[in-house]
């Protein structure tokens, strides 16, 4: 069977949820994999919750909607509440422990707690908690390699904003190297 | 101590969904205050538009109808003609009233429909994410005028009050603003007058309210008030453009 990663990234609007997903989708695409990226949209686009579904697979993607993710990045509590139960058994969840004060209840999934928002603030880049989570994701999960994501990032950031690129990469590195 | 200011009764007791600092909220409250003061909640029917104020039907305690985009004056006509004893008002954005609803607006005025129109001009399409409105200013950057509104292809901003004032059926047209306390008080007086006109059977009354859209203007709420004053007011001068009660007196 084919290798398929189905990731939901979820959090507040403004946390860069959609962008993080895009980086992964680009990374997958440039690594010659099949990918899809699906945002939640709706009346609550401004403020409120945001999530996106990213699929990276060796085989063509059927539905871009993920019902049971293999991977979950939860960047606030409502998101964890909403998606925890949907994770496949054996799936993996990444929790921003700065913003989520509870533990994951399921025992059949692997859990990584990262105080990403705190780390980002420490780096003086409060908006880059998303990249820190991404770094941890690629370190732990078998979705994409560090290099693949780096390439994806390069494509996702306009060439006019190279300083941004460096900063994002720094955050990815921070997450990649983070040990609880 | 006595209460000198509180939430008006006819404004329902829920949180408005508007963005922080969006002046739609002020205008809602002013209408509710006027309905309270005139004691007409029980016979008032409001018409909500399609626009950020689409949920206005949740915010007033009187009966409400939700109209199709731009058609509020036609819907209001239907309601008013069904029972002319009732008081009918529409609440409409600039896309709603001055773009897709142009014909309905002009002809409600021409018929001198005995209704009250509250027209919220924020120079943008708020709800759909910041597209150019008929009232967007020349040079204004929006999602659909990313290089600034250009007169060659996108024309000139419409001045609704000035135009409606040329129509015989318009009883009253005034432009107000809610950018500061003084103007808010004037705005309320205008809204009140527009309802009183209806009670007196004087015909079509419109109050154009200059309003902010901090979100799509990309400004903080406080900055947005400044932008309104500095950019909108010069192009859209406040004042009364038509008032048949004044003409009557003459």
């Amino acid at each position, binding site marked *: 069977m084919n290798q398929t990663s189905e990731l939901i990234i979820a959090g507040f609007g403004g946390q860069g949820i959609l962008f993080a997903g895009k980086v992964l989708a680009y990374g997958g695409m440039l690594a010659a994999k099949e990918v899809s990226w699906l945002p939640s949209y709706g009346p609550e686009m401004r403020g409120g919750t945001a999530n996106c579904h990213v699929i990276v697979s060796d085989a063509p993607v059927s539905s871009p909607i993920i019902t049971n993710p293999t991977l979950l990045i939860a960047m606030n509590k409502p998101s964890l509440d909403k998606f925890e139960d949907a994770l496949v058994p054996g799936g993996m969840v990444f929790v921003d422990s700065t913003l989520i004060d509870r533990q994951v209840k399921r025992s059949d999934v692997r859990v990584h707690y990262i105080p990403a928002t705190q780390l980002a603030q420490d780096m003086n880049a409060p908006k880059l908690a998303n990249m820190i989570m991404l770094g941890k994701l690629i370190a732990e999960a078998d979705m994409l390699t560090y290099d693949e994501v780096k390439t994806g990032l390069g494509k996702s950031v306009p060439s006019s904003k190279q300083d941004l690129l460096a900063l994002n990469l720094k955050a990815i590195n921070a997450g990649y190297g983070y040990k609880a | 101590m006595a209460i000198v200011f*509180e939430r008006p009764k006819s404004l329902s007791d829920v949180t408005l969904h508007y963005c922080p600092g969006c002046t739609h909220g002020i205008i809602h*409250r002013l209408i509710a205050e006027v309905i309270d003061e005139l004691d007409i909640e029980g016979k008032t029917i409001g018409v909500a538009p399609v626009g950020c104020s689409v949920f206005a039907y949740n915010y007033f305690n009187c009966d409400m109808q939700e109209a199709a985009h731009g058609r509020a004056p036609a819907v209001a006509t239907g309601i008013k003609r069904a029972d002319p004893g009732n008081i009918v008002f529409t609440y409409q954005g600039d896309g709603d009233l001055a773009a897709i609803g142009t014909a309905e607006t002009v002809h409600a005025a021409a018929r001198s429909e005995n209704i009250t129109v509250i027209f919220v001009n924020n120079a943008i399409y708020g709800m759909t994410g910041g597209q150019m409105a008929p009232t967007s200013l020349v040079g204004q950057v929006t999602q659909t005028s990313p290089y600034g509104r250009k007169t060659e292809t996108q024309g000139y901003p419409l001045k609704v009050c000035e135009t409606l004032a040329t129509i015989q059926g318009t009883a009253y047209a005034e432009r107000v603003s809610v950018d500061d306390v003084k103007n*808010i008080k004037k705005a309320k007086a205008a809204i009140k007058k527009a309802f009183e006109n209806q009670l007196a059977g004087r015909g079509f009354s419109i109050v154009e309210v200059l309003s902010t859209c901090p979100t799509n203007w990309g400004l903080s709420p406080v900055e947005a008030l400044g932008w309104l004053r500095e950019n909108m007011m010069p192009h859209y001068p406040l004042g009364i453009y038509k008032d048949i009660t004044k003409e009557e007196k003459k």
Partner: protein
Amino acid sequence: MAKVTFLEDRCKGCELCTTVCPKKIVVMSKHRMNAKGFHPAEVLEMDKCIGCAFCATICPDAVITVEK
């Protein structure tokens, strides 16, 4: 003697009220957050309030009640 009360959970932290108070006593709470996640407006020096209701007049969310 005048008093303003905030229906704090309705406050969206827009700061409009702070710009109109003649006494400059309406300020944004730096540390408190309401249920919606906003830093609400508040009056610390209530004794300076003259009950002009300017703050309430400009508040888009009908957060403020004024007594005098």
